[in-house]
């Protein structure tokens, strides 16, 4: 990460395996009054079907960008006339969140919303299960001063990074 990158306070930077989904569209975009959604994903960029479906899911008056990490970093740096506070950034996993920050997008806060249950993942929140790799990526982000919280929908009380680390420690001890 370039050290001179200014700290950015986006409306929401969210890790969610499902990317654009009911919880995101209904609970987050509407509650926070977002005007721009940037889906950062190297795979979906080439998937025309998924892009069209996402375009349909985005509410009226909200811009949608689907871009890979490099293009997203460039586009977010430019800002494109939308306030950071009205911009939502969606990524599929913690590794992409880390890559985005390394590409110079110095977001201040990261919301972890959904990572499904799978072999080798530890449950830290009703809908977040972390693998060792994801945990490592989040540790690295936390070390860079990103405040991380775990929260499915805005009406739910967020769980902070410290409590999650405590849960992970207890799970591995057990």
């Amino acid at each position: 990460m370039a050290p001179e990158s200014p700290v950015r306070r986006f409306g929401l930077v969210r890790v969610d395996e499902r990317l654009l989904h009911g919880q995101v569209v209904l609970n987050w975009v509407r509650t926070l009054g977002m005007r721009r959604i940037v889906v950062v994903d190297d795979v979906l960029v080439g998937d025309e079907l998924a892009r069209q479906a996402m375009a349909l899911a985005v509410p009226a008056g909200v811009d949608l960008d689907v871009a890979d990490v490099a293009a997203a970093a460039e586009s977010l740096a430019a800002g494109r006339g939308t306030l950071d506070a009205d911009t939502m950034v969606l990524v599929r996993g913690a590794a992409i969140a880390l890559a985005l920050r390394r590409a110079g997008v110095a977001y201040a806060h990261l919301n972890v919303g959904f990572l499904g249950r799978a072999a080798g993942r530890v449950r830290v929140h009703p809908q977040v299960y972390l693998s060792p790799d994801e945990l490592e990526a989040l540790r690295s982000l936390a070390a860079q001063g990103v405040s991380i919280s775990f929260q499915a929908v805005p009406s739910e009380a967020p769980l902070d990074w410290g409590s999650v680390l405590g849960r992970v420690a207890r799970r591995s001890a057990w």
Partner: protein
Amino acid sequence: MNWQAAALIALCYYLSQSAWLGGLGYWTLYRPLVGGTLVGVILGDPWAGAQAGAAINLAYIGFVAAGGALPSDISLAGYLGTALVLAGGLDVGTALALTVPVGILGLLIFQLRLTISVAFAHWADWYADRGEPDGVAWVNVLPAQFLLFILSAIPCFLGVYYGPGFLAGVLETLPSWVLPALSLVGGLLPALGIAMSLTLLWHGANGAYFVIGFVVAALLELPILVLGAIALVVAGLAHLWGRRSAVPLVEKEMGSESDPVPPAISTTALLRRRDLVASWLTWLFFSHANYNYERFEGTGFAHSLVPVFRRLYPEKAEMSEALRRHLVYYNSEPNVGALTNGVVIALEETRALGGDVSVGAINATKAGLMGPLSGVGDSLIQGTLAPTLLSMGVALASQGNLLGPLLYSAAMAVVVWGLGWGLFMQGYRMGSAQLVLLARRGTLQRILACAEVVGSVVLGALAVSFVQVPVATAALDGGRWSPGRLLGQALVLCLVLGYLALVRRRVPTSWIVLGTFVVGIVAGVWGVV
């Protein structure tokens, strides 16, 4: 209350979450408007039940559960709350305040069920490994539905049977400020419900429509439904001018018969129409039968493909492989998401015919559609159509009119069944073709915009009738234009907008509810109320 009545109410509560109502349970029996009416029918006074249910429902009208994140169990709140009013003699406000902990208890039951049901998903894997579709089918339905019955009907029966008497005893021993305090909280909670619903509508001119609805209802005392009808006309003029009428648009929102439909990719179809009907009906009934925290609708998706796979994959090994690839995580809005089911079936058929469709392509298509279509479905049905129709139903039922719950339920049946079947078939016919017809954002968004205008106006009018601030209530004795009354109404409007500001600042709902209770208790102790 006799035990038979309590058992019937408990049965209704079970059915509201069960898989037996053709995808309508969550939209009808789960809502206090309908549940309260049923409690009324069981206890011999449907009109009073509808009124109590309507009042409780309004406090939860902003209820949306997307992606399995349930804010509260509004169904249990509706059944138990109405029973407390009709059998326990509580006033609706007090009963409403007591539904808050009841809803949280119901939430714990829901979470317990989704946690335990994970085991049934693994049981389904066991049958899939052996290529036994019957096993997958019954494991998707029976164990979780039996578990649900035990977990829901028994606590509800105990609560309804013993609750009113127990509560009457407890309330007598409590200090004198408790009941007024609870009643005050019950008067404030509808404002929170309306504010939660408004957060979903709060963009463009909808805020202004809400205030207009409020002011017109407060000053002119127009019936809410008349207001709603005027709003519909205004919205129609604003958003649909020069277009086709609103009703066919809902049916054809994602393309119509007259448009050039891309030809189905399979030229020699293996599947018969009855296979498609069976698959859709299985999905309609059982998509959420084994809803669980690991796969969500995954076992339901595999189950819905059983009638299709029987035709496509007579070989046990192929059947096993096909079942296993669809027993993975899946979670979408079931009705708009039925389009995905149709597309997946077309792809599977092409594959079975020896077409060039890889498993990877099927999985990618399914995963790519799942998220966005749940976004479309949740905003269209949960976020817009259901709250708008509910607010109309609540308005009718609050006058003791049973058409409120009936018309609401009928309208939801048309939405759920019409959209579900239409999009399922559309998906099957389109196959893997690009979503050319889907890209008609304009039509979908005009419908959403119209429903949002009507919803905003009606919510404004409902705030006038349902939110009770003591100062305002005391001033109601004055004439329509008396300063006291106007002040009181301004206070109600400020309260709703205040809650809205809190919700939009991402203050957790539990804190807001807790704060409301603290205000109620302080006011009760000081004897303000």
